[in-house]
């Protein structure tokens, strides 16, 4: 059975997304038929797991809610173990437009980059319905600016959960240095320090997700504190060479 394994996995962390998964998964099948689909059911209280299975995806059920980053990481570890060459991560609430999956996958598959990030603040933004409040938008701009300075490359969306990566990045993301509480700007800075290439790809995002799960308290006071502390402390850390095979 393993001989028929596809080389790409689409990973969807989900908490109480029973209503949205069917549409999200069918969107993925249309844009990316060459990929397997894995849903991580992060302790959902509704029919998330059943909806995912019904739509034909693989499911891993977590005993209780670990949070977005830890659920994602479960998927990373699965993908690494199964030997997938490429992984796409996207949200289960319909915020990420599946039409852009190939746009994200292409630069990674072609070897142009190790990590492709879908930026919602870009040329494609008009096609999406995503709107953020002033505070949140300002906060995101600030963190994008800090990231841009530190990695010496223009980043417009440092908090995007819409990404494509190769197995080298998968290895890093599966390790304990991946910050499961807020996997945002400091991950990018960490990857850059370790010599990985990052590329932004314009995507459209939509105003779904009344569900707070994926939004992970972004731009709350604690988030700002934690991100700044992480970024500062990361600059003092040694690069874990053992993760760079």
């Amino acid at each position, binding site marked *: 059975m393993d001989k028929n394994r596809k080389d790409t996995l689409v990973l969807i962390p989900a908490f109480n997304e029973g209503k949205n998964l069917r549409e999200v998964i069918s969107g993925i099948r249309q844009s990316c038929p060459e990929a397997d689909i894995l849903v991580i059911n992060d302790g959902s209280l509704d029919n998330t797991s059943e909806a995912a299975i019904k739509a034909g995806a693989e499911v891993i059920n977590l005993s209780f809610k670990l949070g977005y980053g830890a659920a994602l990481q479960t998927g990373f570890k699965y993908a690494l173990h199964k030997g997938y060459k490429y992984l796409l991560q996207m949200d289960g609430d319909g915020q990420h437009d599946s039409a852009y999956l190939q746009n994200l996958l292409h630069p990674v598959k072609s070897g142009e980059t190790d990590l492709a990030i879908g930026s919602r603040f870009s040329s494609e933004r008009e096609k999406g319905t995503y709107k953020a409040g002033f505070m949140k938008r300002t906060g995101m701009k600030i963190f994008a600016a800090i990231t841009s300075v530190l990695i010496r490359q223009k980043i417009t969306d440092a908090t995007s959960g819409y990404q494509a990566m190769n197995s080298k990045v998968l290895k890093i993301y599966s390790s304990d240095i991946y910050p499961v509480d807020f996997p945002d700007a400091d991950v990018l800075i960490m990857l850059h320090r370790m010599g990985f290439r990052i590329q932004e790809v314009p995507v459209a995002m939509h105003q779904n997700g009344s569900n707070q799960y994926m939004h992970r308290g972004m731009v709350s006071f604690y988030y700002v*504190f934690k991100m700044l502390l992480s970024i500062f402390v990361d600059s003092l850390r040694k690069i874990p060479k053992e993760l760079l095979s």
Partner: protein
Amino acid sequence: MPLRQKLFAIFISLALLMLIIELVRRRKLREEYSWLWLLTALIILFLASWHHLLIYVTSFIGAGLPTSTLFFFSLVFLFLIAIQFSIRISQLTNQIKTLVQENGLLHKRIDELEENVPGKDEAEQIK
């Protein structure tokens, strides 16, 4: 506040600040548990360095001596930190319970599945 006392308080709070940051850097302390410690160290630092603030707070809380204020705030923060730990430990206890139960149930399920594996040594099969 006598100079020696002031310098010592400042020194201790700076040392605490650096210790916490170093522990976070070494990944021995998660950021979510570091913020109360950092806040404590910063508040002690401010109160010790800024004499007028210390006097004001001392009279505000009705303490007799400025040093009492420093002790008081240290204790209050230690309480808060201990409460944070208690809450987290309660949560972890519950999670461990669930995990261990699931682990036991999964083991049982595996044992039951293994009994029915075709080609397994006939003598070893219970049914």
